[in-house]
């Protein structure tokens, strides 16, 4: 599959207009602008600064999982248990708070539970290499949500202290707090992926895991860490989501895995592993987010949004394949 993944090794190359303009990210920028043009036709009040500042806080909570999921997919794996991890950690936080644990401790517990869940995924995947990440995370997906149901049944739990709503609704430096955290995470994950040895190893493993192992990279440790981080970020999402909703129940975050994977794939990350840049998924987060917001403006129901996200996922995978074919052809010429 090596010739199929469009690997580019970072040696300093001459600036090439074709290389520059045929980047996936430009297409995303175009779609992004297109979404805004359509949205501004839908509502005359759409185009003002406040829309751009406050709208993201309605969809950014799940985007925290997009970054680690990008790592997972670059590895050539997948994690479909993230929605369940969000539910489980949120439920445990709410229940332990209502059982008398102070809120800061409950929040730490939430993160700890989510990280542990991710570690269990990572452990199973690295210790049982015969099993694909699909089947491992599929079964943990059932188990984690199952535990959430065992704890809370069909109840909701909430009554959090006043200050906790700051996470979802508060502002810092004039920006919503979620947006600040999002920017911070984007910078950190971008640096890790593109500027550290860890990030390069992730790309290497996505292209050829065996070679990486033979070149002395501790592939098991990297896989384990990536899944652990995915769990941690799912816990972070749980914190923000619960704060925004004010309460939680075992069926929250259902279908998050699809949206997150759709964002990553739309962002130009190849599902066969080894390819992707951080800017793509970030653009994709805002495309899907503003798309959903616009469809809300146009009074289109949630089911239609499901259809659109599903279509986007499949179309972007198909478009990626066409793109690699073109690149291969132009490389041959």
């Amino acid at each position, binding site marked *: 599959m090596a010739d199929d993944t469009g690997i580019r090794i970072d040696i300093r190359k001459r600036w090439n207009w074709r290389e520059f303009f045929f980047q996936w990210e430009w297409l995303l920028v175009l779609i992004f602008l297109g979404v805004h043009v359509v949205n501004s036709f839908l509502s005359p009040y759409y185009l003002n600064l406040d829309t751009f500042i406050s709208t993201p806080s309605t969809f950014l909570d799940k985007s925290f999982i997009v970054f680690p999921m990008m790592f997972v997919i670059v590895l050539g794996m997948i994690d479909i248990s993230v929605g369940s991890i969000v539910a489980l950690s949120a439920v445990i936080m709410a229940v332990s708070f209502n059982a008398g644990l102070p809120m800061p401790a409950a929040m730490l517990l939430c993160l700890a539970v989510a990280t542990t869940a991710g570690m269990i995924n990572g452990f199973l995947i690295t210790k*049982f290499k015969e*099993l694909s990440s699909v089947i491992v995370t599929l079964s943990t997906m*059932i188990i984690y949500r199952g535990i959430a149901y065992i704890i809370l049944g069909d109840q909701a739990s909430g009554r959090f202290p006043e200050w906790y709503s700051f996470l979802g609704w508060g502002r810092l430096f004039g920006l919503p707090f979620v947006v600040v955290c999002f920017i911070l995470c984007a910078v950190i994950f971008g640096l890790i992926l593109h500027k550290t040895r860890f990030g390069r190893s992730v790309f290497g493993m996505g292209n050829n895991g065996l070679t990486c192992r033979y070149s002395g990279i501790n592939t098991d440790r990297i896989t384990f860490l990536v899944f652990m981080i995915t769990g941690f970020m799912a816990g972070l999402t749980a914190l923000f989501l619960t704060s925004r909703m004010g309460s939680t129940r075992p069926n929250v975050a259902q279908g998050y895995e699809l949206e997150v994977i759709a964002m990553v794939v739309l962002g130009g990350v190849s599902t066969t592993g080894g390819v992707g840049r951080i800017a793509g998924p970030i653009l994709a987060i805002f495309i899907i987010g503003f798309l959903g917001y616009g469809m809300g403006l146009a009074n289109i129901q949630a089911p239609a949004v499901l259809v659109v996200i599903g279509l986007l*996922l499949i179309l972007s*995978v198909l478009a990626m394949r066409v793109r690699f074919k073109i690149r291969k052809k132009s490389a041959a010429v």
Partner: protein
Amino acid sequence: MAARKFVLNENLRELGLLMFIIALSAGVQARNPVFLTVSNLTSLFTNTAILAILAVGMTLVLITRGIDLSIGATIAFAGMVSSLTVAAYPTISPALSLLQGTLIGAFIGSIIGLLVARFNVLPIIATLGLMNIVRGLTFMVSGGKWVSSYQMSTGFKAIATGKTLGLNNLVVIAILVYALAWYFMNHTRTGRRIYAVGSNPEAAAISGIPKKRLVFLAYALMGALAGLAGVLWVAKFASAQGDTAMGYELQVIAACILGGVSISGGVGRLSGLILGTVLLGILNNALPLINVSPFWQMGIQGITVLAAVLTNVMVKRNTDRNALRRRAI
């Protein structure tokens, strides 16, 4: 020789599963004597029939090294469209409804098959996408409303409640599906080739087996069975809703894994599948009988699946190690 040893292993595995089922049944029976009564067993098998039908399709897909997460949505969509049709034309014959559902399912399955076989989209991505598209469409065609019992003709509901030869129709349909599948998977060239594609795609391609067509076929058949199951589901519960069978794909995959179908392709037998389905059916049926809260169901199922998957790996490792040791001497 190797093939015979493999079959022996499979037999041992299924024997183990059977023992476990018997032990579980005995345990449940000790706690609640209602379990092993004719009426409860009838309801157990009626409730498990749809799961069993779906498991056949999923087995085909898993054998080709694929997975299908969209079937819950396909069930809902096929069920919704067929019940809307019945609500609009109450005189339509039940057989036509079944055919309609099956065709709708086959169409959705074909799209997935095309994406996976022709365009090399990963099965998990293709079916995750389709799952949401089809689920969204289900809500859209129904306008978010339910189709309830009074809107369905008695003939339509009789698909699931009626009896043929003293057996519930659902069970009869499941038996028919299994008979056909048994013949197809074991005694036709196409069926055997599906195994070949799953156990060694490269060798299969080199020996001239049309891999793409067979993978396509597996998904199309899965879709058709899911469509059929959709009509059965709606007729059984006498209500079609937007969120019908949400997440049911997980149960179906669980039944296959418990039945010894390998996720890495090429392995899976109907005899194991029946045991796996029955085990899951017993878990669903017996937990309420022994006063386990329904909220425990999901967790217990998940643990069972994980345990089954891990046991499979351990057993496989053990046999491989033994084979190596024998070769060393």
